[in-house]
């Protein structure tokens, strides 16, 4: 993930949301990867999704995007043994952004995110899964790839190149 974050063009306007099945100190760890003028934000409830910002789903909440472009947090049951769940964020992003949505599913130890990535693709957006051969844990990207042939499979370097070309000045 660090590799991808560093690949974001500095002038990139498109907001980014990171969802991790994670340990407590990941926020500060991720921030160490960032330049001084670009920090990773844990959004508060009903905060506007702003251009050029990188957000991290806060621990112990599902992170959703509302149709009006604000964040909503949700503290209901775990999904795939996780809160935040990747599926929940993907579902809401698919509904809010339609064909403008890009979902990327990286290495992970369960099938969370697969159904969500499929929803993004069904709603006209783009879905990318990390090449399972390269992934530390292949279960997560593999689960998505098995759901649909419309999900692109790429190695991290290629995902980074894709992001740079797609989002330079956007």
């Amino acid at each position, binding site marked *: 993930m660090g590799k991808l974050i560093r690949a974001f063009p500095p002038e990139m306007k498109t907001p980014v949301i990171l969802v991790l099945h994670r340990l407590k100190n990941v926020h500060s760890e991720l921030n160490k990867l960032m330049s001084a003028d670009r920090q990773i934000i*844990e959004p508060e*409830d009903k905060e506007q999704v702003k251009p050029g910002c990188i957000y991290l789903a806060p621990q112990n909440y599902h992170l959703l995007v509302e*149709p009006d472009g604000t964040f909503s947090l*949700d*503290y209901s049951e775990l999904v795939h043994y996780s809160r935040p769940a990747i599926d929940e964020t993907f579902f809401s992003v698919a*509904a809010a952004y339609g064909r403008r949505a890009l979902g990327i599913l990286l290495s992970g130890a369960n099938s969370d995110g697969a159904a969500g990535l499929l929803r993004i693709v069904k709603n006209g957006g783009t879905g990318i899964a990390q090449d399972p051969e390269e992934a530390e844990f292949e279960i997560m990207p593999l689960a998505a790839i098995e759901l649909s042939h419309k999900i692109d499979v790429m190695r991290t370097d290629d995902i980074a190149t894709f992001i740079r070309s797609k989002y330079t000045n956007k």
Partner: protein
Amino acid sequence: MVEDISNTELQELIYIIQHQYGYDFNDYAKASLKRRFVRFMSHAGVTTLVEFKVRLQTDPAFFRKMVEYITVNVTEMFRDPGFYKLLREEILPRLATYPIIKIWHAGCATGEEVYSMAILLQEAGLLERSRLYATDMNAANLEKANAGIVPMKWMKDYTHNYIQSGGRHDFSDYYTARYNSAIIHPSLRKNIIFFQHNLVTDQVFNEFQLICCRNVFIYFNRALQEKVVSLFYDSLATRGYLALGMKETLLFSKEKKKFEVVNGPYKIFRRKL
């Protein structure tokens, strides 16, 4: 299986519920309400949206089950231990100056936070002269809360939270273990009153020195948050405290000028004059 519902379909569901049963979900946050409906349909084995609408309209018991399911009832004892530490060290000593301490837990779900508060008050020697009003819109939640029974499997986590919050007693003194359940000690319950109150439609019913409403606002849109903040303002004594969830904020509220921030990260506010 219904995987997703559109915004129009969501509006239709909200309309049906409002007109048939008087529950108003118009100002709930759409994305999370939608996912609650979808999850309920799958939970109840409803396979099409049409079937869902018909059953909502024809079967009041089904409707009640739906409301119980979608009004989120996940909660913990001593969740965010740092918050309870602050209550213990900074807020309760101030509340101690009142002859009778009145606290409102708005949206108390199954009561875990109210019982946490009762434990804090007990340890501060204040429980005797405290009155805890615990409300929720979901009657099934209140029934569980009133029973004071917590699944034993969570007690290890809760004990850990309790210690983190600065608790110095033996946490197991506060409950009796019976099979898979922990029964909260009845002495903690005697000053708690549980009753139904809907923040969307119901009014001020008393005046409080502290209102706790944690992780309820996240299910509301800004307009409804605004309305409820003003209900809280009217329900607070001058200089009374309002505690929200860690990710909730008064920042977007027009009412924010009427409050001062007591603790930013832990979202504790205080009513100005």
